[in-house]
């Protein structure tokens, strides 16, 4: 009886398993795509607009570097109302693999050529996780799958908080200092 049970288990095991890795899996490219919606008037001096993806959070000016940058879409035509993107389509840079990414945004620049200086860029749209627009959202790309509906709204009249190192650095620092002072006051009141 025991032998029969073991043989049945073995048979079911053999039947249920696949062959593991196969060449077909090479055709499945993990990535993401979505729509960018623009609200308000475009800055006439903007020369380039891109969807950009960073692996690690932009906590300092140095985090805005080529090795942290994982995706840069082709430049979006000025005065567009919306733009559909897909990391498997042609792009300036695409190093997207299954992982967690900390910063996905739409960035604009006034330079003629593509620059990697943080000062040359302004963030006009930011990807947030559902129900939390207080901080940049984390984008999770699972194994062997493509994530759709990664949508970003760019409201030129109400741009998101800028990462450190840009033109608006002084404003950000002021905002951080103010929030820390508020926090200290709150603690004292406790």
């Amino acid at each position, binding site marked *: 009886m025991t032998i029969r049970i073991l043989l049945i288990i073995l048979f079911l*095991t053999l039947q249920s398993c696949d062959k593991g*890795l196969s*060449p077909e*899996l090479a055709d499945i490219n993990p990535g993401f795509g979505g729509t960018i919606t623009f609200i308000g008037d475009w800055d006439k001096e903007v020369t380039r607009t891109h969807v950009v993806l960073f692996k690690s959070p932009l906590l300092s000016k140095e985090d805005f570097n080529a090795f*942290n940058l994982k995706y840069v879409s082709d430049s979006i035509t000025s005065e567009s109302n919306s733009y559909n993107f897909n990391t498997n389509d042609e792009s300036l840079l695409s190093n997207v*693999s299954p992982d967690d990414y900390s910063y996905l945004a739409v960035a604009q620049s006034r330079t003629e050529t593509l620059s990697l200086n943080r000062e040359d860029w302004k963030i006009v749209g930011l990807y947030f996780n559902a129900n939390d627009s207080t901080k940049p959202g984390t984008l999770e790309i699972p194994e062997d799958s493509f994530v759709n509906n990664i949508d970003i709204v760019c409201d030129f009249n109400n741009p998101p908080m800028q990462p450190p190192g840009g033109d608006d650095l002084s404003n950000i620092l002021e905002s951080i200092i103010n929030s820390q002072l508020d926090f200290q006051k709150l603690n004292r009141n406790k």
Partner: protein
Amino acid sequence: MRNFTIILIVLFISTNIKAQSGSLFGKITDNNGNALIGVNILVDRTVLGVATNSDGNYILKELKNGTYKLTFSIVGFTKTTSQEIEILNNKVEINVSLVPTSYQYDQLIVTANKFSQKLSDVAASTYIIDTKIFSKKNFQKLDDAFRYVPGVTMTLDQISIRGSSGYSRGAGTRVLVTFDDIPIYTPDSGEIVWELIPVSEIGRVEIIKGSASSLYGSSAIGGVINIIPKEITSNPITFVKMQGGVYSKPSHKEWEWSDKTLYFNSQTISHSRSFGKLGISASISRFEDLSYRQNQDQLRFSGYLKANYNFSESSTLSFIGAGFTRRRSTFIYWKDLEHALSPSDDDLGQSIKSDRTILGMNFNHIFNKKLSLAIIPSLYLSYWDDKSESDNKSNSNLFRTEVRLNYKPTEKIIIVSGSEFQHNKVTSTIFGNRSSNGIGAYSQIDYKIIDPMNLSFGIRYDYNKLSNLESENSISPKLGITYKFNNNTFLRTSIAKGFRSPTLAESFTSTTTSGVTVKPNPNLNAENSFSIEAGIKHYISTDFNLDFAIFNNEYFEFIEPGFDLKDGQLFFNNVTRARIQGFEVNASSSFFSQRFLLNIGYTFLHSKDIDLNKELKYRPKHSIVTSLEYTQSFYEIGLDLRYSSKVERIDNEIVDFGLVPNGDKRVEIFVLDARVGANLFSYKLPLRIFLNANNILNYNYVEIIGNIAPIRNYSLNLEFVF
């Protein structure tokens, strides 16, 4: 040194004084009367010991007149100790029939704590590999066996016990491996080269899980593997092993890269015998593998020599030497998943030539019933030449010596104390010209407070100086308690601090291979750990036992390979905090009059890089190993199944930089092996035959990115013993 020379001279003279003596001889069989080969016979309170030959016979010559006790042991049988035997210028025959048992926990003797003790008295989880499995499964290398040990993960040839290591291409190890008491990590990279240990000469393998730095120092932060060579036989015994096998066609047409039949084969001949007080065991072997992957063929020649000279019943000097020379083509990563068994075009034609040799001596002297001394010097010589684009070369040597005293003031107390010194020198294009020094001193006391309870406390101090870097100091204590609740239930718990100094490879590697640039990090700090475990072994019946262990390991300044996002170069860095928690459950059962043996082991690992709040790389969360064996008369059939869940994190950066196309593709591991074998000894034929089919489902998986593990292969192993 002068005193040591005097001791040796005195001992030598004393052995030449003609004494009244006799001998002990006999035959060891199982309960069916079949001769047992390789049974260890030790003479209590002496340094004398032999193993049985192919007929199960042994002889101990030139024993001084007196009374002796013999202990007979071999894995799979109950350890047996004889009555007091009196020798008075005569020959005494002692024949023993050993009883097979799975009820071994209170019987087995292990030496992992640098003295012989019952397995049930060891506070750490310990696993013993039955070395018969090397023949049964046609293993070519020792590490092949570790894939079937619960709680042990092999990532290519890098070992990890309970998730202690990920994958670092051999730079450093967190598991210390000793062969005949000699650590065998390489002088330059600090890795384990498994081919150095001849599988045919292994007598026993003990795996101690959890930190053992309190006794072994750096590198033992994740555990220790203690390999004991076979005892030299008293009567001549010759062993010839011939093995051959073929790989199946790949399961996908796109992966085929050769029209030829891809095969592997090996030939080994070994001989063991004694001439009076001198015992010698030697072997040579050749191994050739065309490999299932393009550009990974290899040819290896190995040699091994062990010699014992018994100056007296209380003094012995042994020599051990093992080495190989090998040329192996280099397969680093696949070209892409559509060409998974071929390397990138740039890597074709690359190869590495390597020569590795370990030489060691062990002088053992028993002063009296309470005190014994061991002096163990060794020299590891390593050379390799990477005949590829990088053109790296490394020539290195490691001299090491250990002096150890075992003191047993009462029957309840054993104290092991010792000191070690090591010096290594490296001349290399990849590591630079470096040297390092280390000293260590340790002491451990095992105290049987009350009969069922054993308390063990050890502490070790280590000092390491790596080239021109700042020196490192560490103190590593350990406390362990075992409690024999009753004859069926054994409890154990231990708490230990571990440490590991960075290796030369981790601190100084500077090279570019397959597009990956590795840069040095001279600011690496030593890593530390704090581990705690508790376990229970319970025999539900003589045929069914369960072992459960739960553990928590905290790592500080954990050294892991990673990429510097500023320049895209690989380097070793201290991950500030890591935590590995988990549990293991192992069940062993025999049924139908022990014709069936079933072992199942499950390991759960929860590993975390606490800073990043992510899993550590290359640590599977779930692992299962099972084996089922059926033995009837002279033949046996076996099945082995192992499973590991898909590792959650890998070196994604290598994939991101486009260095390994499709490198992120991986799956769970699911491997089924089958074997059939026959032992014709009971038919008076000195032959064992084993036929193996490994990975019979031809399941394709990777252990590291871009490296398909061995596909289905068939092998035949013939062993002649005469």
